[in-house]
């Protein structure tokens, strides 16, 4: 409980610091990607499908799992679904439009494997959430599905 007259100051300061650090670390990370792909032989699809999203979403996943462990499953699911909708409907068009503005030819021609796996995972998740109850078996099945996709994209 910090006595302070400016409740928003610490939020804005911490946001500014965190954003600066993340930008610098992201630039470091992305500049090493060509080396990893060419010298170490990691497939680009594994890097893009599994490794990069985990580092983007790690903190958000931790918050969501905390909510679930404290019996606020509705809040946790709200975070999950809000985040997926945010990615699909906001981040993707943002990236395409910014690419158009700075003359980078980005298109949304996804690989067939990724598309099929995505639609299947939505069907799986939809069927798990339909009965309004959850247990650890459903969770472990989702995790096993994710591991299978990771292994499949590693040997691309």
């Amino acid at each position, binding site marked *: *409980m910090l006595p302070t007259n400016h409740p928003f100051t610490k939020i804005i300061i911490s946001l500014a610091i965190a954003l600066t650090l993340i930008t610098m670390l992201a630039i470091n990370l992305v500049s090493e990607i060509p080396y990893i792909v060419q010298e170490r032989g990691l497939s680009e699809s594994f890097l893009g*499908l599994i490794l990069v*999203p985990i580092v983007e979403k790690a903190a958000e996943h931790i918050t969501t799992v905390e909510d679930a462990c404290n019996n606020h499953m509705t809040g946790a699911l709200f*975070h999950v679904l809000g985040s997926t909708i945010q990615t699909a409907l906001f981040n993707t068009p943002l990236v395409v439009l910014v690419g158009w503005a700075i003359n980078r030819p980005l298109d949304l021609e996804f690989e067939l494997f990724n598309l099929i796996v995505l639609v299947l995972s939505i069907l799986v998740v939809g069927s798990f959430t339909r009965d309004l109850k959850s*247990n650890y078996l459903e969770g472990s099945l989702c995790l096993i599905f994710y591991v299978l996709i990771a292994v499949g994209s590693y040997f691309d």
Partner: protein
Amino acid sequence: MSPSLLTDIPPAPPPIHSNGSRAALADDIPVAEIALPSSPRPSITNEPRPSLGYEDVHHCGFKLARGVRIRPMHILSICWRTASPASKCVNLLWPLVPIAIALQYTHGYLHLEVFILSYLAMIPCANLIGFASYESTRKLPKVLGHLVETILASTPEMVLLLVLLHKKQYVIIQAAVLGSILATLLLCLGLCFFFGGLMYSEQTFHGAVSELGSDLLLTAYVKLPSLSPYPVHFAHIPQCNGSHDSRCLSRNSSIANGSNRTRPDYLSRHFNVPYVRVLYLRLLPDALSPPPVRGLTRI
């Protein structure tokens, strides 16, 4: 305990509330929950105290200092004590951040080490953004707070995608977009259900969330393949230049985002309509709920 210590924040760590790990920074903890059983309750009596230049009294009975008193060690100790186990492990990664930044500029030839260190160092920074967005939702009105939290939580993702775009890694961007949806749906949901199921045998959730999950997600993501040129290829148009057409399709679809391309109206060309629609639909029940009626609780 000496009387002078009663004016300071007590050293006992506050218990973790049912809503998780952020309880210590809330302003509304009642006094009884903070004091240890062995220590005396901080009293609000009028006994003489040494004057320390304080003026106001906090509503919990502690005296506030004038102005801003920043005590870094106290801040750090609060952050450490109130973090959940997972957040504690993430906060342990903070020393890697200056190491990763310094290594890039001094020993730039150590590519693998720089990659791994930058990877691990991004996690505590993203955790700080998540923490700041959570704190901001406590100060803002409910609807705006949820909106700000959702947008701020995806800021690391936006930054990473834009940096990838700048460095021309198009294959990885396409994989990252789908991969982040996969990671959230399968990995995050799987971990939630798994660890929640270990702690409670069965958990229930509200029907509105599941409806949002199954129906809205499926319709939203069936649109994503339609943004790709597979329908064009299957139509066997002979003068179809694959890459140029796919780019035009993607750009127009990103503006209109699935709405009818043969009938472009101003709204669909200039606003990202489905996102706005989804946000409004999600926020509308909150916005339409009646404000709490005061003054009727007296019986």
